[in-house]
């Protein structure tokens, strides 16, 4: 039998409201700029250009981090250290991209270390830092927000020590590909994001891992008693978040071909958490939605793009971001959703022929 279309459940779902918000924002974009949805092909770079592609492209760092953040929030925690890890990852990558100063004196297509070190070491370090977070939270049972606050405070200091407080630049072309290259007509970050989202979704939904995360998020003690290794789950989730922050850091530093210990990944933790929450995952833990998170991240980026269209300074976008996010959050809040679903219920009853 075909499942009956149920307006009331749909009204209660947070993802629905996220979709509504995104569509509304896109409509406003379309009104402001009628050519908003045009996508053009640039043969010289072999890439597609257009606002929609740009939105997805620019949201990729946050989307990648938010994948890990979704699981962390599903566990009932938050990871504040991701922004600092982005800075650390970029600092290490650029440290390996040094060149022989005696031969060349401007940045160019050369490096002393093999390229795989540039990719592997930052990710390994970020995984280790994620494991450190996991250790504090799983073994010592600290509150995640405090445990990750340590690395958030320390992380940028570590990044600055690694680079001696300097800003390195590079021109190494394989590194440029990560953030500015293209594959299948699409910018490379979109491809990387798609792969990450697909892998995480497969890992979470095609194995029991996702269910375990939800279970630990709802009641850690009960899940331990029912035979789930809660500590191991927490370790894996935080290591994964660290790893994803590492990837995000590589993309970020490849976009600017430089490291920036002070500003790289600034407020990324906040944006990632917002993306997760807009995507419909509750901060109290439990059920999560990866699709919602991707949507949330794209919504945030769409808002920023929209505000640019009004010709408002980049820092001031925050105010508009706040207003729109406030509307989304209020729409998603429990009392409001209940109100709408109640109304939808009443309407359905009326349509079915009045009072039961």
């Amino acid at each position: 039998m075909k499942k009956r279309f149920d307006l009331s459940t749909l009204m209660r779902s947070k993802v629905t409201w996220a979709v509504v918000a995104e569509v509304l924002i896109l409509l406003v974009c379309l009104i402001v700029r009628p050519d908003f949805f045009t996508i053009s092909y640039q043969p010289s770079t072999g890439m597609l250009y257009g606002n929609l592609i740009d939105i997805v492209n620019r949201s990729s760092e946050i989307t990648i981090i938010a994948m890990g953040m979704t699981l962390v929030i599903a566990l009932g925690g938050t990871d504040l250290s991701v922004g600092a890890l982005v800075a650390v990852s970029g600092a290490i990558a650029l440290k390996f991209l040094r060149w022989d100063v005696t031969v060349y004196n401007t940045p160019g297509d050369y490096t002393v270390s093999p390229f795989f070190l540039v990719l592997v070491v930052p990710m390994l370090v970020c995984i280790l830092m994620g494991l450190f977070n996991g250790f504090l939270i799983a073994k010592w049972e600290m509150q995640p927000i405090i445990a990750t606050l340590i690395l958030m405070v320390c992380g940028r200091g570590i990044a600055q020590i690694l680079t001696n407080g300097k800003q390195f630049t590079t021109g190494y072309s394989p590194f440029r590909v990560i953030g500015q290259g293209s594959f299948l007509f699409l910018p490379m970050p979109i491809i990387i994001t798609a792969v990450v989202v697909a892998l995480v979704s497969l890992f979470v939904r095609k194995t029991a891992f996702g269910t375990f995360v939800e279970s630990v998020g709802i009641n850690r003690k009960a899940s331990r008693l029912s035979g789930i290794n809660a500590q191991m789950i927490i370790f894996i989730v935080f290591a994964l978040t660290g790893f994803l922050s590492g990837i995000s850091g590589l993309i970020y530093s490849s976009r600017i071909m430089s490291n920036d210990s002070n500003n790289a990944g600034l407020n990324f933790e906040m944006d990632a958490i917002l993306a997760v929450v807009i995507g419909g995952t509750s901060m109290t833990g439990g059920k999560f939605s990866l699709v919602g998170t991707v949507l949330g991240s794209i919504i945030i980026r769409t808002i920023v793009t929209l505000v640019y269209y009004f010709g408002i300074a980049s820092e001031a976008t925050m105010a508009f971001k706040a207003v729109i996010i406030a509307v989304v959050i209020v729409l998603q809040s429990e009392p409001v959703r209940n109100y709408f679903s109640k109304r939808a219920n009443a309407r359905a009853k009326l349509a079915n022929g009045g009072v039961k």
Partner: protein
Amino acid sequence: MSDSRNSSSRSLISSIMNPKFIMVYATVGIFLVIYLFGAAAYGSKGFTTLRTFTNLFIDNAYYGISAVGMTMVLITGGIDLSVGAVASLTGMFIAYGTSVLGLNPWLCIAFSLVVGVGLGLLMGWVIHYLNVPPFITTLTGMFLARGVCALISRESIEIKNETIDALASWKLYFMQFKDGEWVRIRPSAYINFNVILFLVMLLLGIYLLQRTRFGRNIYAIGGNEQSAKLMGLPVGRTKILVYGFNGLCSVLAGIAYALYVKSGWNLSLQGAELDVITCAVIGGTLLTGGEGYMIGTLFGVLLKSMIPALITFNGNLLSWWGKIATGLLLLLFICIQKIVVSSTERRNSRTKKTKKSKA
């Protein structure tokens, strides 16, 4: 008479020895250890002078003022990420109002108070009645305040106003009685308006938390919000008022910061909210709520401000070691908290067991 005095002194001792103060003692102890270390290492450079000590207050009064409100929010089990942005917005209002629009500074301050407290109350309302997590609500508040800052101006505005100048340069020197007249002690040490504001807010915070019904409600909500509601305590009103009070503290911190740097900038105090939370946590406030004392927060602020002071006195270390040292300090305190909490839990379970076996 002697009997009653005896019992009162015993109750004083037992209240001092109360295990619930252990975290505060740990903070004070570590503060003393680090201070003694500084005295031993840099005593010859003048680390032990009263001036260095008062500078800890002068340079960090705005953190302290904000930490008073933050402690209350944390005790209710909430969090407020908007404090840095609201303080920055206050500085912006004062700078723009006095320097660009030529308004009376008191009018600017009053306007900031209305905006800051209003935003705090609004966030409290959203948190309580719409059931939105405090983290997200106040994060949105932070984005809003920062954005409005940038809308006003993206450049740093210098404050040129007689009243503000007078307020900022007002100093109360420490005096000593020598040769029949009062003279300034050497090297001269003073406190300014910011320090007095900090101390007044701290005393107000102590009074509110320990001596009023409002304070007890705060602890009750932090301990268990559900039980507090069932007991008939005004949970909603208390929570909203706490966020409102924190908004007041943020505005006052913004005023103190504006007096300290005498300018307004939309990116000032970025990340201050987490510094303030760090101060409160170092001072023994639990983020789970229900536990924390203003005195602990005071020493948390002093401890955190000691690190940059030590780095300055060393002269060779670069400033980013300060971040790492703060992180390590945080780690240390969380470890102490962990040990204290688990040991008291063990003790409690043991006493329960003995009671049971006696029965």
